[in-house]
């Protein structure tokens, strides 16, 4: 009737205790659940375009048409400068990381509420949910990146050595989305107001980021404040890496990275702290 005692004595003992106000980050446990992270991301990607007529083309349509609209209204009619690069490719270079960020942010902010059935019925590190939502955005990014390559070819632009910075910039965009997404997803569990705030926030953020215009039109004295928005560094960095703009966004990027890391650390702690009551209040 009883199991082999020698085997049970080596088993690890899980301690279940009341919620603590300064929980451990639990990154090791997260690593143990990496397969779940993989499967949830895979599921999101797999079912995202199910039963749509255009399928994965949606990943391209959104940034592409935004680029067309931007080129028409900002580039052609309003005459927004584009640092000497053709406006369409200038804006598409900005839209690419922007869409990655905006989609990842929206998905991860709604992720916990969208998985309430899982959260109330199974245990796993809850961090898996917003992280997998963010990772799912990378596939759309990869698809629209192919379009960008086509456009570079069309305009005869050959990226220089700076292109090696691209993966790093991508990671920075994803981390920014995750950092904000952790705060918002945890808040969303308790206050559904967040759901309505996200769209507004993303639109506002778009104008605070040099997607439709170059950051060079921002007055010099405001640059430091402007750089507090991590997406400024990411978008500027993208243009620098792909279009070979002369000035490197080094300082801006440094500020952005510091801001993201601070946001991320705070988000992780806030999330871990709130996580302990997700199942009760979701």
């Amino acid at each position, binding site marked *: *009737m*009883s*199991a*082999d*005692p020698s085997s*049970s*004595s080596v*088993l*690890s*003992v*899980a*301690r*279940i*205790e*009341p*919620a603590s106000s300064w929980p451990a980050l639990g990154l090791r446990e997260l690593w143990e*659940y990496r*397969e*779940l992270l*993989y*499967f*949830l991301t895979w*599921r999101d990607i*797999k*079912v995202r375009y*199910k*039963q749509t007529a255009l399928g994965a083309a949606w990943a391209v349509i959104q940034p592409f048409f935004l680029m067309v609209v931007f080129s028409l209204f900002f580039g052609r009619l309003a005459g927004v400068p584009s640092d000497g690069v053709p406006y369409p490719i200038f804006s598409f270079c900005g839209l690419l990381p922007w869409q990655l960020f905006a989609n990842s942010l929206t998905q991860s902010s709604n992720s916990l509420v969208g998985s309430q*059935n*899982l*959260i*109330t*019925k*199974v*245990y*796993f590190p809850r961090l898996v949910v917003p992280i997998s939502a963010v990772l799912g955005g990378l596939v759309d990014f990869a698809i629209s990146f192919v379009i960008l390559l086509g456009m570079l070819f069309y305009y005869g632009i050959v990226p220089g050595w700076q292109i090696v910075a691209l993966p790093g910039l991508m990671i920075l965009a994803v981390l920014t989305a995750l950092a904000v997404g952790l705060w918002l997803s945890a808040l969303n569990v*308790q*206050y*559904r*107001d967040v759901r309505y705030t996200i769209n507004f926030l993303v639109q506002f953020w778009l104008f605070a980021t040099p997607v439709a215009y170059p950051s060079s039109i921002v007055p010099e004295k405001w640059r430091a404040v402007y750089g507090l928005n991590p997406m400024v560094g990411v978008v500027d960095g993208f243009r620098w890496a792909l279009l070979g703009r002369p000035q490197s966004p080094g300082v801006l990027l440094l500020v952005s990275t510091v801001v993201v890391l601070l946001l991320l650390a705070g988000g992780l702690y806030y999330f871990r702290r709130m996580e*302990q*009551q997700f*199942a*009760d*209040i979701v």
Partner: protein
Amino acid sequence: MSNFSIRCEGLSKQYRIGATQEKYTSLRDVISDAAAAPFRRLSSITRNGHGKANGNHNGYIWALDDVSFEIAPGEVVGIIGRNGAGKSTLLKILSRITKPTCGRAEVRGRVGSLLEVGTGFHPELTGRENIFLNGAILGMRKSEIERKFDEIVSFAEVEKFLDTPVKHYSSGMYMRLAFGVAAHMETEVLLVDEVLAVGDAQFQKKCFARMSEIGRHGRTILFVSHNMSAVRSICKHALIIDKGRVVAQGDIDDTVDQYLSQLNSSLAAGEAIETKTFSVTGVQVTSSAGPVIKTFDRVEMKVRFIPKTDILDPGVYMSILTMDSRRLTGLDFKDFITAAPLRAGEPAELGFVIESLPLLAGTYQVEVHLKDMSRHLIEFVPQTYEFEVAETDVYGGRKLDRWFGYIGLRAGGFEKSCKS
């Protein structure tokens, strides 16, 4: 005894009553809440000094109240108790879905929990894909799922439909596949909630067989069920939980018997349930033959209440439901007799005599509507009462289980020679 599998010490869980309605907290609430927080902490300190009052306290309720027990490795333990007694809360805490408010617990080894069949199944994905997804959600490694894959598929009998999206599955196939994945987890501890109440009899039989098999392999199982014959056949020990407390623990037959007789008598002693016009003090189902109700017993089913106003033409409708709330039958008082008027504030009792209760073994619920026919008033009593019919050899031979359904018939066999 240090060689435990599960150990709980003073485990308690407090819930806010009506918390589900407060899902969408507004910002205004937060601000007023934050202002009140220091006082709340203070009151929780003084509260520990006074000990915990059971039940409702300032809109909070203790779903689990100072639960302590220890379970040895390899034990298969049934957890029994009425609806809302705290069984599911206990499993949720042990599976780490929710945190206890106070107390602590230790669980040795990996924990698998099956609180619902098919959690995380995605209708658009195929059977094969869902096996991997669901397995990962339940905490299985990919290699483990691969190793168990064939077993799961043959258990679920879905070989031909592996590459069909599960939204096209029949509900039977869906349930078998979902249970199949969970039932092949290789964890040291398995927590199973009342998941087997769903599905048809054949499915249940299959699941119970699998559960007993798992139990024989030396793994620790906590099993919540309302199905007493299932609990008896799978478990060797049981815990009774009532109002968040462990009231008994021990050998399976003793505890189940204790639970059944307690259930039948405690129906009468519960707290009053208020409706607009009535204060219901008890509902009782009793057998004239003894403390335990058996199939074909002569049974009385009655409700005790205090009317808050004068009732000119009192009536009652009582129906018997299965645990998954399917109405089996109902009795309306006015079909039998006309009762005398009742005075406000005076206790009254209305009921029925059932000459021969045709129900097979299992737990049933009684639902009550109280009426005043003179005012066309019908009030639903917002709580059902459970009673248990014990397992007996209905037709004189073997004991009958749920496989035979709910209804016992006064029947006999006959034969006729058809030789020409």
